[in-house]
Each structure stands twice: as C-alpha cells, then as structure tokens.
C-alpha cells in the first residue's frame, strides 16, 4: 500500500519560501495515501498561477492545463475513467475569476471530482494584482486606491449552486485539511474545498497571523450541523465567510455519473471502440 511518500516526486516547487501551498501539497499527498490510493489511481488537474503548478509536484497523473479551465479538463478525465480519483486544483484567480463560469456549473453538474482552491486573495504569479476574493479597499498594483469591487463569498455561492460538499480550511491546519480532503475524495459527487493559503510575498494583509486571528472553527460552534444548508448559509453570513471546517455536506445527492442514462459502469476508456455490423445497419436504416 502506498504511503504519502509515494506521492512525492523529486521536483522542487518554485513557490516562495513560506508559501501556504506547500502545506496543501503535503495535505493532498497524505489524504491520497490515507484513502488507500496508489499514485497511478490519481489524476491531479490544475490551472494556471503559482498554485496551478501543483500537478507537477505530486507523483500522480498530472495535467497542468490553461488558465481557469482545470475543472472542465478534470470533469472530462473523470467521465472517461470513472475509476480514477480526480482532483482539480488552482488559485482564487483561476477558479473564481477567469474560471468562475466553470466552477458554478461544475457544482451544478456534480461530476465526482474534488476541487481544492488555494485562496490567497491576490494574483501572485503576475506579481500582485487584486483577485475576486480580495477585500474591499485592498491596495494592490492594479488597485492603487484600494479595491472598489465586492469580495466574492465563495462558500455562499457554492451553497446556492447546488454543491453537495462545501468546506473551507487554512493551510497550516494540516491535520484538519487532510481530513477534509479525504472526506471530499470519498464524497460521491463534486466537492469544493477552499483553502486559505497565504501569499507571503504580495499579500501583507491576509497573513498567517491575520487568519489565525479572524478564522472561526466550526468545531467551536456548538451543535453545528453540516447537513443543514440554511444553517450553513446563516453561519457564513454571520461570520463574513471566515469559518473553517466542513460547512455543508449532502451525502444523498446522486452524482452526475449515477444519473446519466446508459453511462458505462466500467471505465469508458477501457471499452472496445468497434461497432457491430448489426448495430451499424440498424442505425443506417433509421435514416431510410
């Protein structure tokens, strides 16, 4: 059986020292081993940006795509081979700006993949511009007088988009993050895990200390029931989205693959591609 070390490759990440993404990388490797995966059972699809490089830093089938499109690629992979575990990942710009359309529709569609976002509230690779999750008033190279656009409430948006597994975490909480990723992988349907992953170079506001001070753990809220969507929404609103833990889980919603008429129970990728003469003749006769 594989251990987390088997999910390591020898590639040195080009992230800055202290970047939150290192912990996310480690958490994915541990969670994959903990749920019993072998490296070749896993596909990691990522977008563009600092965090998008993660598919190259995990020993698994990695696909580093184009900006904002990790989700459609990942959904295509899963539809082709339902036996593969598919993780999509990227940053807040990738998933919530250029790729937002896909994020909402992937949640609605509910193909069984896990989406892990490394949210640092800034564009790092392009050296410090505002992102959709930047707070109002946040000063960056592209918002020298402070951001005048609203910050996205991504967890609320996930709830309203029909996502059946909504979680948020903080990159230094390795143990909790690993557990959430495991649950996300095991959830039969689309799971979203937004991880606050501080950018130590360009974001001097949302720092490790800032998150430690401002994030509230759902474990500290008495009798919090993650299966109650209304409570989940209310809690998010009360705390301005700054909560961590499993926010909402609906284990009963059937996944896309379970709902598609005629969809092969064995991986489509292993099917024979030929068509019988009888079937072909039948299909032709329908045009006669």
């Amino acid at each position, binding site marked *: 059986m594989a251990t987390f070390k088997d999910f390591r490759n020898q590639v040195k990440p080009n992230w800055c020292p202290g970047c939150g993404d290192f912990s996310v990388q480690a958490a994915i490797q541990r969670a994959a081993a903990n749920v019993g995966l072998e490296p070749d059972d896993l596909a990691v699809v990522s977008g563009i940006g600092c965090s998008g490089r993660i598919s190259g830093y995990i020993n698994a089938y990695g696909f580093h795509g*184009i900006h904002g499109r990790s989700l459609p690629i990942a959904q*295509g992979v*899963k539809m082709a081979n339902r036996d593969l575990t598919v993780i999509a990942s990227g940053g807040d710009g990738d998933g919530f700006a250029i790729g937002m359309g896909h994020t909402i*529709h992937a949640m609605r569609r509910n193909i069984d993949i896990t989406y892990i976002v490394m949210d640092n509230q800034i564009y790092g690779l392009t050296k410090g511009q505002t992102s959709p999750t930047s707070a109002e008033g946040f000063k960056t190279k592209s918002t020298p007088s402070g951001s005048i656009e609203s910050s996205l409430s991504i967890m609320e948006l996930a709830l309203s988009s029909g996502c059946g597994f909504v979680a948020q975490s903080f990159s230094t909480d390795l143990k909790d993050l690993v557990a959430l990723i495991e649950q996300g992988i095991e959830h039969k349907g689309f799971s979203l895990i937004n991880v606050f992953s501080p950018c130590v170079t360009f974001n001097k506001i949302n720092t490790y200390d800032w998150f430690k001070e401002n994030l509230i753990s759902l474990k500290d809220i008495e009798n919090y029931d993650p299966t109650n969507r209304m409570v989940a929404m209310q809690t998010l609103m009360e705390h301005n989205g700054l909560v961590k833990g499993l926010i909402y889980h609906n284990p009963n919603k059937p996944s896309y693959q379970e709902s598609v008429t*005629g969809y092969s129970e064995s991986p489509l990728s292993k*099917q024979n591609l*030929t068509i019988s003469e009888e079937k072909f003749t039948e299909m032709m006769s329908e045009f006669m």
Partner: protein
Amino acid sequence: MIEQLSWKVGGQQGEGIDSTGEIFAIALNRMGYYLYGYRHFSSRIKGGHTNNKIRVSTKEVRAVSDDLDMLIAFDQETIDVNGHELHSDGIIIADAKFKPVKPEDCKATLVAVPFTEIATELGTSLMKNMVAIGATSAALGIDTETYKAVVDEIFGRKGEKVVNSNMEAIQRGADAFLETAGGNLKALSLKKADGKNRMFMIGNDAIALGAIAGGARLMAAYPITPASEIMEYLIKKLPDFGGTVIQTEDEIAAATMAIGSNYAGVRTLTASAGPGLSLMMESIGLSGITETPLVIIDTQRGGPSTGLPTKQEQSDLLAMIYGTHGEIPKIVIAPSTVEEAFYDSIEAFNLAEEYQCPVILLSDLQLSLGKQTVEPLDYEKIQIRRGKLSDQDIEKREDKSYFKRFEVTEDGVSTRVIPGTKNGIFHVTGVEHDETGKPSEVPQNRKDQMEKRLRKVSGLSFDTPVYKNDKHNEPDVLLVGFNSTRGSIEEVIPRLEADGYKVNHAQIRLVHPFPTDELKPMLDAAKKVVIVEHNATGQLASLVKMNAGYAEKIESLLKYDGNPFLPGDIHQQCKELLTHGNV
C-alpha cells in the same frame, strides 16, 4: 414525363413548412428518387418567411437547382419572394384562403386549392400541410397511398383516428387539385424511380454517425446553429454504447472537457460554428502542445461575430488552419459530400490519435444541413487506428521515474499512456516541457520539442487529399473548391463543356497540411484556374497561391450573400472570366 423536379414549399416560420417538405421528401426518397433539400430559415422560432427547396431526380443530385418547377405557397409573401424562380411551365399551388395573386412577370400557372378550408373541415387547420402534400402529389401523378407509411410513423402514436384524418387530408388535397386544374398539367409527371432503399440525411447526421463508427463515446458541446444536430443525434445514440453528451456552459468548457477525456483515453469530440471556434482557440493550442488528441467539428456559417447564423459561408478556413497563438501541428479536413462527411468523421478520430494533435473537421452550413439521398455506407470501410498507444508492457517497467510521454522520436510521435496505467505516470502541461512533461525553458529542449511536434504532420497520409476530375490534359479551366461547392461545380462542368471549354475540377479535401504536391500538376496543366468559394476575401485562393503559386492564372469566384452557389451563378461568372479575362 420529367426526370427531375425542383419543388419548394414556403410560408411563415413555425407553420409546419419544414414538416411539409420532410413528409414529401421521405416518401419520395423511399420510392427511390434522389433528393437534395435546402432550407431557407431565419434565426427566430416563429414568424418570418421560411422555405424548403427540394430537388427530386432519378439521378444523384448534390446542389440546389437554378430554377423551380413547383411552388407550394401558404402565403402571398412566398409567391412574391420565390415566384421569379419558376420557369414558364411551372406551377404555383397556393392556399385559396389568402386569395393568391401572381406577380405580373410570372408566367407559371397558379392553382388555388383551399388548403386551410379542407383541413378545418377535417378537424384542424394544422393539417393544411397534408392537404398541400396531396395537391402536390396529384400534380406529379404520385399515388396518395405512398404517404401512408410516413404518416403512420409520424402520427401513429396519436392513434388511428389522427392517422386517418391526415391521410384523408392528403386525398382531399389531391382531389381538390385535380378538380381545379383538370388534366392540363401532365407535363410535370415524374418518371418512375428505381425503388431502391437509400438513406435520406443531412451532413450533420453523417458526421455524428461517423463519430460513433469511429469510436467516439463522449461529446462535450454547447448548442449552436448549424452544429446542434450533431449533439442531438449523439445524445440519443451514445447511451447505447455506454457514452453520453455533456452540454457544457460554453465552448471553452466543451473543448477543454474533450481534451480531458481524450487524455484519459476516450475518443471525444466537440462541435460548433464560428463563434464557438473563436472561443476554443486557446484550447486548440493546449491540445497541440500537450499532444492530446482532439476532434472538433466546425460547421461554418456566415461570420464575423454573430454574422449570418443561419446562412451559408466558408469564411472560417484560414482561422481554422492558423487559429491559436503559437505554432502547433494541426490537421484540417474538409469533406465535400455527405458520404465523405461520414468517412472523414471516422478518419478524424484515427488521425487525432495517430498524430496526437487537434483535428478539425470543417463543414459548412450547406453540407451540414442540406438533406439528401445517400447510398448505404460501407461497414467494411470502418477502421479504428489508435496510433502509438502503450500496451501492458509498460506495467512491467522497473524504472519508477516519469514515463517519457514526449520522447523525441524520428517521426515526432511518442507513445501515449492512458492515465490509470500502472507505472505510466508522466506530467502534462501547456508550458514547454521536457520528454517526461516537466516544465523546461532550456533552449535546446524547446527547439527539440517544437521540431518534434511540428514534424508529426509533415508525413501525414490521407486517403484522398484532393478530389480530382482531371480528364483533360490541357484544360481551359480548372475549377477549385472545398466543402459543399462540389455539387454545384459538378453541375457546371457539362454546361461549360457544352459551351466549348475543356474543364477539370479539384475539390480540396485535406486543407491542412496543404496537399501542394497533389494539386500542383493540375494547376500547372490548366490555362486558367477559377477558385470558387463562399467568402469575400478568397481564402482558398490565398492558400493555393501561398502553397503552390500560379497567382497569374488564378481567378476568384466568390459569393458571400448568405445563399449557396447555384450552378447557374458559377456557370455565368465562369463564362465571363473565360471570355473577358479579369472581371
């Protein structure tokens, strides 16, 4: 007796004009006639003039005819808009309800039949199209019982009563026509057909059927005219094969999802038209640099932007060849008949896997939507070729390092591993990468990988890159086209030959990589070359000049008003070019 009939039905969109044409055409196809139907429609659901022009012949036909023998009119606008196409022996059969009048210069005979009145008497005015079909049949000498099977198929599930009243509507229409017109119009009696079973389908049907025969099991697509029929057919059929169609949020998702599932080992397509293809350009580059097979169908329509969404055009050609930033290997094929659309669709999937690159199957609105009689397709010709795909050996690999998925090889193609394979892990990235897929900016590596990718398609083998009719050694003119212009060009050849010109014809089937060697001798032999295409800037002519030269003898014959070339258009303009030189 006539061997060929050109028939048109027109009225307001949403009034059953299409189904009138459809029922008439299916019945005639089953009698063994060859048909070619072209719909004139607008980008709206109800209202606006629409018509369906159907050519019926005892021989194969592949183009819209120049004139018209019979016009079925549900409103005066139909007569006003289309009356000029009728020749002097033609007939207009119009609904008496709107008190039809002939335009002054129209020499055709007008017969008013109370379509609506008869239909209403039988229960519902909706059946007026059946009355019209009956009147048509009487004019052509076709037995009304011919329609029984088609009517059964369409209305059978609504019960016997509905079937019977529709059949009665047809009979009453025939009777009413004969009563009004008498026996004076026998000139239009159609010669009997051979009664053989053939298919009646649009190009999009053939592409979709080809996709299944070619092993495609998934499709990701966003609806668009004139491509949607492909996804509509596949959503009905793919579940029989364990697959499905995913309707995505946009064309970017469609193309990237298709890349994801092709990467994971399933032949997957997407289909769209100009606006969708514009959105897919970045994905096409991703497929190119990651060497992931990808099949995209582009059903060209009028551009740019939303352009003429329901009209014929061939203006995506250069964008399909050169579109995406940077330089990638790409294959662009352009079937020119419905049969070719089927076989090329299969071949697109083979080429995409063999060359591990994007393959664009270029169609145009006329080919995609023109409905025509097609001879049965050949099962024996269906091939599945997957190229360099890893076998089980890789699982025995002792070396646990990343697999060299992008190994530099002589032909440029490297072995592809399907994710999930034991010991086959490699990385894929749209960033320039080394042989294992790890990002690399090393200049020599960049050079090696670029050259490896680009040389893949240099040795491309494609069955018929150019359709040739080169019967003359020294033709006065070589006509060149691509996609659906084939039918019209073929009809022009005997007319030009009757005028005394020797004519050869080349229809470009593989537009990229351009078949320069195949075409050059034909260009060389011709005194003049006329390149016929549906765009304003002569894109195919530019390609020919760029790849093969001969600019001094090349003339362009262009049409970009939204309507397909009629053989008469090409004939007349060609004659002018040949008589007067440059026009």
